């Protein structure tokens, strides 16, 4: 990929901090600025993707059959949740009432009426290998 020299004006303090970080990381100022520019562009892409996703779901709501499943779930009132939240939910038989962890990304939660969750269980021993890494390998996340 071709490269071009670009003149950028930075505050003295910013240059000092960049140089300090560069020497800590064994890299240089230009490389840090390249990474910074990429991070800004990535964030803008993600923001655009969130906006497009929300607009798409507003145009075409979720399939009602998917939203209604499972019908055995008890409906009370809608709570406000975010990704990574732990919430109690009644999953119906046989799973019953148990905590779940919210997995859907926040931008989508705002516009969906059904969201993805991972059930939480106390049943560790019968599946649990010995180390946290093995727990991860077994697809169970434990502190």
């Amino acid at each position, binding site marked *: 990929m071709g490269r071009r020299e670009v003149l950028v004006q930075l505050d003295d303090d910013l240059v000092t901090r960049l140089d300090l970080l560069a020497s800590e990381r064994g890299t240089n100022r230009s490389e840090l600025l390249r990474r910074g520019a990429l991070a800004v562009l990535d964030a803008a892409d993600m923001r655009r993707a969130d906006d497009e996703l929300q607009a798409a779901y507003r145009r075409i709501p979720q399939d009602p059959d998917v939203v209604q499943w*499972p019908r055995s779930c008890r409906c009370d009132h809608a709570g406000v949740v975010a990704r990574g939240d732990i919430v109690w939910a009644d*999953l119906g038989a046989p799973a019953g009432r148990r905590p779940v962890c919210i997995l859907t990304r926040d931008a989508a939660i705002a516009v969906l009426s059904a969201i*993805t969750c991972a059930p*939480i269980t106390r049943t560790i021993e019968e599946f649990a290998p010995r180390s946290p890494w093995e727990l*991860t390998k077994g697809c169970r996340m434990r*502190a």
Partner: protein
Amino acid sequence: MGADEGLPDASVITCDNIVTLPKAILAEAVVGHLSLEKRGALDHALRYALDIQY
């Protein structure tokens, strides 16, 4: 996971059994939240569970 996440007992998230739930059934207040570190571990486990390789 456990008390730090508002759970009464030591527990695990089962990434092999993820479900889609109507938002309306998440009726009760949020009892806890994953720390950034545990969220990283969860994301790792989800990648493994769903065989996301790239």
